[in-house]
């Protein structure tokens, strides 16, 4: 008689809601990023002490995916809300998950000042170079020449000015303990992103200061590219403007 032993080699992180299915467009990197966050929360045993702050955009329904306590912040104000949570609950683990429009356009003041104050919170910013949820308009990170719904002739200096380099700006703040830019375009880079998320969480737990990771991500629907082409765009176009790397580590 042949005896077989089944071994589960791949399971959903406990910090993700059981049976949950991501509603994101095909080829969008949000699902990968949120899964990585959940994996690190599991591995660092943080689920029970986490209060996550959701933002506005495709990132908004974070509370539908993460199986942790969550609060929704008004557009751009995630790091202000996170500051309020952390300052009154120093024993909790506080995390924001934001898009680049939320973090670096409408919420730039809140983001920079949280970093300058050295808030002991961790911020994750998904940079897909467009306003995804509203249908693909030009945002603060839209690169020069990029065609969007509100830059039909491509981003140019005269009408739009220049994109913001978020990870570099956050690294300039004295209160920042860690700032990195990562990508989800390959297995190797997904692994590096996970390590950057871990580092971002560790600096909070160690009380070193503000932890930040910018994740270059795809938006195939609004980029009008296939999932494969989208990752090629990340490599071929975005890496030139937004180089990967660790910009600050104390």
């Amino acid at each position, binding site marked *: 008689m042949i005896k077989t032993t089944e071994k589960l080699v791949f399971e959903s992180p406990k910090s993700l809601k059981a049976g949950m299915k991501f509603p994101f467009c095909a080829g969008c990197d949000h699902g990968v990023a949120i899964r990585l966050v959940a994996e690190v929360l599991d591995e660092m045993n943080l689920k029970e002490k986490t209060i996550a702050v959701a933002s506005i955009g495709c990132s908004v329904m974070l509370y539908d995916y993460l199986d942790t306590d*969550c609060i929704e912040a008004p557009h751009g104000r995630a790091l202000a809300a996170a500051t*309020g949570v952390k300052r009154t609950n120093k024993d909790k683990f506080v995390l924001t998950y934001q898009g680049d429009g939320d973090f670096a356009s409408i919420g730039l003041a809140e983001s920079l000042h949280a970093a300058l104050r050295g808030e002991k919170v961790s911020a994750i910013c998904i940079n897909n170079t467009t306003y995804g949820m509203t249908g693909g308009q030009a945002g603060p990170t839209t690169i020069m020449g990029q065609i969007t719904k509100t830059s039909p002739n491509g981003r140019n200096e005269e009408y739009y000015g220049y994109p913001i380099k978020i990870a570099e700006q956050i690294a300039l703040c004295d209160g920042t303990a860690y700032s990195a830019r990562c990508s989800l375009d390959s297995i190797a880079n997904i692994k590096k992103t996970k390590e950057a998320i871990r580092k971002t969480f560790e600096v909070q737990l160690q009380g070193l200061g503000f932890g930040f990771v910018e994740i270059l991500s795809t938006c195939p629907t609004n980029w009008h590219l296939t999932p494969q082409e989208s990752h090629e765009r990340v490599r071929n176009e975005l890496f030139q403007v937004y180089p990967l790397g660790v910009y600050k580590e104390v």
Partner: protein
Amino acid sequence: MTKKLTTGNHAIAQAAINAGCDGYFGYPITPQSEIGEFMSKKMQELERAYVCAESEIAAINMVLGACSTGAKAMTSSSSCAVALMQESLSYIAADELPVVLVSVMRAGPGLGYIYPSQGDYNQATIGGGNGDYKIIVLAPSTVQECIDLTYKSFYLAQKYRNPTILLADGLLAQMMEPVEFNEYPYPEIPIEDWALTGAKNRASRAIYSLEPKEDRLVERINTLFNKYKQIEENEVEFEEYQTDNADLIVTCFGSIARNVKSAINQCREKGLKVGMLRPITLYPFPTKKYQELAKTTKKFLTIEMNMGQMVRDVRLAVNGQVPVEFFGKSVGQWLSVEDIIAEIERFNG
């Protein structure tokens, strides 16, 4: 208890500390900056949360975050800066968070100036945030009431999990009066069944206002309005002064009631049958009390340090039963007792 000479701003700040305020988040603006200054010292001494926020927008959202965890938290601000907070007040009402906002009115639209004014009655009671929501609004008339109503603001905010505004003005905030700092008189309200405290030994929780499903959105708004109905039934507070057999009832709120009372005393000595009704809760508005008094009085005269804001609520309440007149001045001019007596005599004549 011995009395202490205190400004309205310091009275509010100390009362907030006595009420157990865990976190103060604010940005300076005259005429309420002394609240933030006082808190920067005292909150640090007590090792409670204090943040010099980068803007009023950030400040109110820090309060939103803190209150979502069940902490008692507040901000204080004034007129044009309270305008900046309106979006978040709508979120806070939708999220049902126990936020306390101290709003110390200055004068005029735009930057205006720091003169005493009551120009933000509409801003507080109607609000500028989006959607159907209501905010509890308490209006002190003395420095002692600044203390008592700060206590009540924290209590009502917690009891109903609803944003609550303490609406003062520059005059009350800056002047000194002898006051008693009694202890916080209200029971503590449990937070365990709703606050974000980490999903330990319970299911995870989320506090949010996004509601894509129509029937659930309708249900949420109905739940809010059932709560508002309870607030309207249970929390109306007002001061009634010499309204018995009054032919004319002067009605006003906040600091100007002090002069109105003096004017009424002098008018009564002259034999004029005049009384005063002062709403202390601007929301919930004492509609029933106005309707009751409209059966016995001949006229209402609404006096405000603005161009006529509360008078609209008075007219809605009285609903044409008797005439409702208005007397007021804008630009923060203090209405003197003589001004008020002259107006009473004119209306009574």
